[in-house]
């Protein structure tokens, strides 16, 4: 089986569906989007992730046509979309509030966009039925939006925005109003529908777990810039900056200075303690300040000093966060810094190995931590 991996962003031949070319958007003095250049490919599930006010919603609204870039161009299939009004774009949007028309039934909500295209009655009916089936809403077709539950409303919104078979579907915090359980189920449903329809999805979210779950690529944004756009795994394991490392998941950042040593680097981070060891693909000059980003699950915790690893530090347990499946230990290492270590609770009835105020050893491999520039 020659199954090819879906990675159009690594293929120089692939033609992007959407291209941002030096796009800047200002509202008065405030710069919402700052000189943005990047591509989104066909059939991608692309997530825009960032704190509120980072510009992710503005980007989406520019794609939908509700905002115009102040500078630069946005191309959709090679065509500049700035002069095209929202009602003429092959782009549909699912709103955060769902924006279902309260005076229309579920059926009429889904048919709304199709009717604007002057399709024949039969074609509209067939398409609406197809959408109802896809989103498992057939039995609610005659209900009004206020007569169905939150999860069903969310699916109506999705069906309505997919009905016109857009080239690009924009989803603005689509799971924002759902409770945690329903959200997880809906995420998988969404991925399933995206795969079935082959539509390009761009999702805006502030929930990193959601972005990591659904997306083929995640763009982490801050202050109107994309800091890193990459696959969820690379965003997590190879962040390109302290901001990204800190924004996604839990992390301990240890700052120090780098010094070349053998194949890797030694990082001096405190007076009177041996340096840490790490490997890095990016080059650091001797004496250059650097930050080590260390994920808690890559840090082992033990009572005796482990001999097989070079990165070992002694510390004292300050806090224990028991999460059920995991336990996170907050350990104060020599020099006063806090390091997080995580262990999986694989056995149900085991005595806890460590408790508060215990002296423990933390250790990790040379490749566990990521070296980041200032």
């Amino acid at each position, binding site marked *: 089986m020659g199954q090819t991996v879906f990675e159009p962003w690594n293929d120089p031949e692939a033609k992007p569906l959407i291209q941002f070319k030096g796009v800047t958007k200002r509202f008065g003095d405030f710069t919402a989007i700052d000189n943005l250049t990047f591509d989104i490919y066909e059939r991608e599930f692309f997530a825009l992730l960032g704190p509120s006010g980072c510009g992710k919603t503005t980007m989406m609204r520019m794609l*939908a*046509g*509700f905002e115009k870039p102040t500078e630069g161009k946005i191309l959709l299939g090679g065509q500049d979309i700035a002069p095209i*009004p*929202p*009602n*003429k774009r092959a*782009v*549909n*949007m699912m*709103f*955060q*509030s769902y*924006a279902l*028309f*309260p*005076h229309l039934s579920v059926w009429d909500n889904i048919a*709304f*966009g199709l009717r*604007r*295209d002057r399709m024949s009655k039969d074609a509209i009916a067939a398409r609406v039925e197809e959408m109802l089936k896809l989103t498992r809403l057939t039995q609610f077709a005659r209900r*009004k939006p*206020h*007569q*169905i*539950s*939150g*999860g*069903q409303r969310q699916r109506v919104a999705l069906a*309505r*925005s997919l009905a*016109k078979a857009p080239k690009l579907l924009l989803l603005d915090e689509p799971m924002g109003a759902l409770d945690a359980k329903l959200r997880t189920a809906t995420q998988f449903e969404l991925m399933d529908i995206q795969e079935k329809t082959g539509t390009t999805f761009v999702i805006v979210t502030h929930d990193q777990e959601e972005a990591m779950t659904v997306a083929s690529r995640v763009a982490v944004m801050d202050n109107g810039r994309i800091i890193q756009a990459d696959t969820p795994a690379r965003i997590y394991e190879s962040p390109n900056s302290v901001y990204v490392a800190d924004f996604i998941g839990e992390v301990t950042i240890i700052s120090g200075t780098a010094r070349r040593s053998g194949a890797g680097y030694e990082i001096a981070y405190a007076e009177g303690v041996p340096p840490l060891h790490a490997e890095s693909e990016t080059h650091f000059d001797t004496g250059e300040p650097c930050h080590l980003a260390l994920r808690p699950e890559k840090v082992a915790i033990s009572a005796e000093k482990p001999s097989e690893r070079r990165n070992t530090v002694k510390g004292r347990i300050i806090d224990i966060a028991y999460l059920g499946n995991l336990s996170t230990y907050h350990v104060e290492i020599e020099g006063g810094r806090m390091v997080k270590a995580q262990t999986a609770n694989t056995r149900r009835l085991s005595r806890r190995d460590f408790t508060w105020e215990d002296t423990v050893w933390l250790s990790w491999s040379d490749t566990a931590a990521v070296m980041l520039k200032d």
Partner: protein
Amino acid sequence: MRRLTWFNATSLSLGFAFLYLPMLILIVYSFNESKLVTVWAGFSTKWYGTLIQNQAFLDAALVTLKVAVASSTIATVLGTMAALVLVRVGRFPGRTLFSGMIYAPLVMPEVITGLSLLLLFIGIGLDRGILTIILAHTTFSMAFVAVVVSSRLVTFDRSLEEAALDLGCSAFDAFRLVTLPIIAPAVISGWLLAFTLSLDDLVIASFTAGPSATTLPIKIWSSIRLGVSPEINALSTIMIGIVAAGVITASLITKRASLRQQADERAAAQQR
């Protein structure tokens, strides 16, 4: 539920008496047999009978109705448009001035409004009659419509309109198919408000009415000056009846709709 205390009961009945005692007296005396308004001489409906044969009153009632329907309809269109601009079009030069001027007729003394309209109509040589009353009533009641509709628009979820645009509507279609049906209750109550304002307006109408057209309030006012007649009482009772029926029906409809919606939402939340 808190019990109705002695103090509360008293203040409630005093309040209601203050509001409704005059009307009650009017209604009771409209069924008075005697021609003298202040002397009770037994129950009779004869004044209602003579009222129907009074052509002058019937003409005035017809004029009033025409004026009220026409002016409240025009005022609703203009007032809704003004409200849309006020709420929707963010900041534009002179916005504060514009919104201030929209609301000014609410606090302007009616005498001033009436006088200035009279001067305008004389100035442009418009003969006073039904048309001038309609124009005058439109002028002051559109401000009320604008207030009612804009208070609804403030809470209107803008993304509904954006969704309509996104699904292929032109701006006008989005308004016609989405915004208007949703704000319809506010537009209708704006219309009703304008209608009742026009129905009972005396001051502005007396400035702008001409010999060819007299409204009911003017007619009542002028016949009162010749002495109160039980006929007027009967007429007023009918008007109270019409207004009360309208208000009660409207509130019942709204109440039922909101109860129904609440029940639906509860059911929807449970069956997930």
